[in-house]
Every structure is written in structure tokens, then in C-alpha cells.
């Protein structure tokens, strides 16, 4: 009995002890940008004496947390549809922070590089092209010696923004895919095995000869996975790099930045790319939120879209925002209010 009283007293002391300290901000959501965000937040903590905790629980979890008003910001690889926006308790703004791509990785010993058109790519994932020595592949890659091996398709078993981007692209470029499978964070894959997370897919591809799958660029670039060149809308075969990913954002972007960058028409753009966003409420005065907390949150996000943080993005294998998009992001931040008054100047 005595021991439990002491324990309770100790616990409450610990709770008290933390009242006077640096501002603490919490966010949750997408796993795709998590390495970049963690590196950025660690840097920001040194600069601004503000502690940021971020949990990579998935875009859906991030949106849910924001809806339940238990975090300062949510993070999502997919922007909220009009219907989803209506479902939120108050208006929400999207601020893009960086972009990433989906690379198509494969395991073919001895093969240095392969080119794929959207049609061939879709056919492989639809299960229509089942063997590596199919004439369509040979035609696209005349110099390559394809083995007579069955193609093992590897996809994600968990719901993910990477899947969403990949299937969104396939839906845009292939009618059969559009009617048969469609786009989404989780879809009904016609063929293939599912592996969990980027490491799962990458690992499965490494261990299975003749396999092909899709991986998020942050993972693929860091691990230097061999990836296919995909033909973009302008007809060029583009390799996925930080530069070609950023190029996808250079076209026309709507004012609220809610757009999928897949199948971009920019000539040097890699066709399977997209933004990732931070989501906050347009009016920050909810749930007894203090002005200080709102200011701290906005200052953090403002820093994320400015030059230093964007430079860090490049270093960690993420594609920075093109100048126009960064400016748009800053403009959106300046429309966020607290009790009607703009927070940032």
C-alpha cells in the first residue's frame, strides 16, 4: 500500500516537472517522409528550442489523429478528397513539404538496365506478361539478354501512399488497369505476393530471382536499388533521380496544391512522382489551443518549406519543392488564422 502511494506521488511529480520547458509540437502520419522529417525536426530542435515528436503511423493514422484533434499537424502522402475534407470538423489546409517517387526495381542478374513503357509496366502487374523473355520486353530492350524465367511480382501488403501513387499512375496510363484494379492505398492486386513495407518489398526482390516490384524512392535511392527507366508523357525514358522527381512538380499546380503529379507532362519529369503534405486546421483556435502553440506549429512548417530544410531534403534523398511550389506553400501558411487574425507575417 505504502509503495503504491509513493509510486503515485513520484509519477505526479514527474508530470509537474515538465510544465516549464521548450515548446513541444506533435505530429503523426505518413511513413514515406519520416526519415527526412526526423532529420529536419532534430535540426529544428537545435535552432528553435522546440521539441517535435513525430510518429510514422501511416497517412490514414495522421488524418485520423488530426480529425480527433490530438496532434498539432497531420502528414499524408495523399491529399484529402473533397468528400474527406467535408468529413473533417473544420477546414484544413495542405502544405507540401517535398516530393518523392516510386521506382520499379527488379532482380535480373547480369542485366544492367531495362526500359519500360507504361503499357508494358501495366501488363506485367496485371499478369498479362508472365515471362521475362516476352517479345514486348525484348522489343523495348534490344541489347538485353532476358532469361526464360517467370516474372514474380512483388507488391505492398500494407496500405501505403507509395501504392497509391503507383496505382494512380497506372490508372492514368492504362485503361485495362483503370477498369480492372483502379487506384488506392490498398488495391486488389491481380497477381503477385505482398510484402510489408519498403524493406519487405526490397528484401523480397533481393531474395527472389526474376522478381519485379515497386519501392518508394527514399528507400530505393538510399539503398541504390537498380531500377527501370520509365517512358514519360513526353516520350522520353527517364531514370528516377532526385532531379527528375522534382521536375515533375514544375508544371501547373492548383492554388491549394492538391494534385497528383503522376504522368507529368514536363519533359524531364519522372512519371511516377508526387508531393507529400502536412495538414493543419485553417483556424488554429480550437480545443483551447494557445496562440503560442499555434505560432510554434506554423513556424516549424514555415521552416520546413524554406531553403535550409529543403537542402536537407536533398541530402536525405528526397526531392525538394520547386521554387514556385515552395512560394505557394508559404502563401498558404499565411492564410492560417488564430481567432480571425493571421499568425505569420
Amino acid at each position: 500500500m505504502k509503495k503504491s502511494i509513493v509510486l503515485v506521488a513520484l509519477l505526479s511529480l514527474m508530470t509537474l516537472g515538465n510544465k516549464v520547458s521548450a515548446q513541444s509540437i506533435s505530429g503523426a502520419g505518413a511513413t514515406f517522409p519520416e526519415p527526412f522529417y526526423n532529420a529536419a525536426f532534430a535540426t529544428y530542435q537545435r535552432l528553435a528550442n522546440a521539441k517535435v515528436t513525430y510518429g510514422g503511423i501511416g497517412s490514414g493514422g495522421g488524418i485520423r489523429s488530426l480529425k480527433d484533434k490530438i496532434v498539432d499537424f497531420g502528414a499524408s502522402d495523399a491529399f484529402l478528397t473533397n468528400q474527406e475534407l467535408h468529413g473533417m470538423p473544420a477546414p484544413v489546409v495542405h502544405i507540401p513539404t517535398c516530393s518523392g517517387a516510386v521506382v520499379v526495381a527488379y532482380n535480373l542478374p547480369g542485366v544492367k538496365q531495362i526500359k519500360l513503357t507504361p503499357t508494358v509496366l501495366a501488363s506485367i502487374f496485371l499478369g498479362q506478361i508472365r515471362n521475362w523473355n516476352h517479345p514486348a520486353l525484348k522489343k523495348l530492350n534490344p541489347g538485353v539478354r532476358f532469361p526464360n524465367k517467370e516474372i514474380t511480382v512483388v507488391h505492398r501488403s500494407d496500405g501505403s501512399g507509395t501504392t497509391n501513387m503507383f496505382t494512380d499512375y497506372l490508372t492514368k496510363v492504362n485503361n485495362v488497369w483503370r477498369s480492372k484494379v483502379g487506384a488506392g492505398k490498398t488495391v486488389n492486386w491481380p497477381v503477385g505476393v505482398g510484402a510489408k513495407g519498403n524493406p519487405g518489398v526490397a528484401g523480397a526482390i533481393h531474395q527472389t530471382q526474376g522478381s519485379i516490384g515497386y519501392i518508394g524512392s527514399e528507400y530505393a535511392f538510399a539503398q541504390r536499388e537498380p531500377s527501370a527507366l520509365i517512358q514519360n508523357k513526353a516520350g522520353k525514358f527517364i531514370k528516377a533521380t532526385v532531379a527528375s522527381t522534382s521536375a515533375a512538380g514544375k508544371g501547373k499546380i492548383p492554388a491549394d496544391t492538391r494534385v497528383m503529379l503522376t504522368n507529368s507532362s514536363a519533359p524531364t519529369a519522372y512519371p511516377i512522382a508526387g508531393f507529400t503534405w502536412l495538414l493543419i486546421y485553417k483556424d488554429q483556435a480550437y480545443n483551447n489551443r494557445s496562440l503560442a502553440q499555434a505560432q510554434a506549429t506554423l513556424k516549424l512548417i514555415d521552416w520546413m518549406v524554406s531553403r535550409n530544410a529543403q537542402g536537407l531534403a536533398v541530402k536525405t534523398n528526397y526531392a525538394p519543392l520547386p521554387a514556385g511550389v515552395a512560394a505557394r506553400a508559404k502563401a498558404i501558411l499565411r492564410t492560417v488564422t488564430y481567432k480571425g487574425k493571421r499568425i505569420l507575417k
Partner: protein
Amino acid sequence: MDNIINIGKTAGLLSSIGYRKAKNNIFKILVMVFSFLTISMVFLIIGTLLVKGYKQINLAFFTQVAPDTFTAMMATANGEVIPGGIVNGILGSIYLVLIASAIAIPMGIVIGVYLSENSKKKYACVIRDLADIMQGVPSIVIGIIAYIWVVVPLTKGYSVLAGGVALAIMMLPLIVRSTEESLKMVPDTLKEAAIALGTPYYKVIWRVLIPTSFSGLISGILLAVSRVLGETAPLMLTTLGNPDVNWNVAKPGSAVPLLIWQFYNDPNMVNLIWSSTIFLMGFVLILNLISKWIGAKRK
């Protein structure tokens, strides 16, 4: 088959010493073989962990917070050991387990006592079955429940308290059932003797039943603690994670399994998962040794 048995019976073979001894020896060999199989699996797994992770273990591992992907990338590129450690996770895990234990151990033991003392009653059977069913609930579902009941209404944000509650729910069935079964093994004669001497009920429980079954209780508690030390899914939905050490129960906290999950998904930090697991194993080992020491002292 029947004919052989009949012939055997007539010849007195089936009850002969030779036959019984043969069965006995064959059984002993089987037991040895299967035990050996189990132990070799253990060695295989722990061996893999040690081989993959020993390079990352150093003093900094226990004193510094988790590195970020950029620092890790630089270190790997230079062929160095990745700096930083997991102290935010270590202290976070210990904090969570303390909170969960403070809730689950007293409650679990008391409920276990109730079940063993009333084991024939129908109501007790229902409670027992409910506890067994709770054991089968996936950890992520418990995380969802703790999210609905603690994160949103109570702490209005991800918090260590929610994580502690989720872990406590996971520990409960194990502690309840092992307490109950251990108490059931105490010979009735001991209990009856104490009652016959006029000992009040609470003293019978506190001074006769619990001390006799103490090693069983400790095993159950140890198993429950070992399990929750390695759980990830419920913590993702309740305590979220924290780059620093955090003592505030109403704020997000870190834990070693959360860090392991983070390292796994980060292409530059994947090698840290093995050393983090070695730490968890070491911690469970220490708890094991402590409990054996306590058990030995009591004898």
C-alpha cells in the same frame, strides 16, 4: 494389432519389466530429442542476433538518443559505426513497463486469487474464459481500444499513460491465469491446516498460499513483462514515439520496439535493429536472473 496384443497379454509381455523399461527409455529419448530441437532453435535465433548486432553495441548505445537518418547515412558511407544510441527508447520502455506493471500485477494477482478460490463456480468459469479470449486479441486491436478510451478522451493526445494502459491489458490474462494455476497447485492440506488453526482468510492467502506458489507467480509476471517489452503495434497508436527521454505521462514517449520499427523502415539505420534487440534480450535476461535470485532467497 488386436491379435498381437492378445498374444502379448497371454505371454505376460505387456506387463513385463522389459517392455515397460523399453517404453520408458524410448520416451526419455524422445523428450531429449525434442528438447534439443527447441534449444537449438533458441541458439540459432539468439546467435543470429548476436552476429548481426554486436558491432553496434558500445557505451554510447546506452547513453545517447536515437540518431537521425542523415547522421546514420554519413556514418555508413564512411564505414563508421552509427553514432547515437537508444536511451530514449530504453528509459521509455522501462517507464511504460513500470506503469503497466503497477496496473496489471496487483489486479492480476487479486483476480487470480479469486479464480483459484472460487474455481468451481459458473461465474468464475466465465471470467476464466474471458481472460483466455483476451489473450487472443491482436495487439493492434488493444492499441485501437486504448486509443479510443485513453488517447482521445483522457489525455487528448498520444501519451505514455495510454501506452501503459494498453500494455497492462495485454499483461493481465497471463498474470491472472498463471496466478490461478499456481495457487491451485498448493496442496489443500496446507490451506486446511491454516484455517483449522483459526487463521483469518486474508492471512491464509497472504502468508500461506502466495508464498508457496511464489515461483509460479513470478514466472507468470516475468512472461507478461517479457511479452510487452517487445510489442510495437499497440504503442504506435498510443504512445507514438519521442526523440528524447520523456517523463510526462500525458505526452508521447519512446520505446525500444518503436525505435526498432523506425530503424527498420529507414534505409540508413536498418543495422541498428539487431543491437536494439540484443539490448531487449539482455534486459529480459537480467529480469529472469533477478527473479531466480528472489526465488532462491525465499527458499
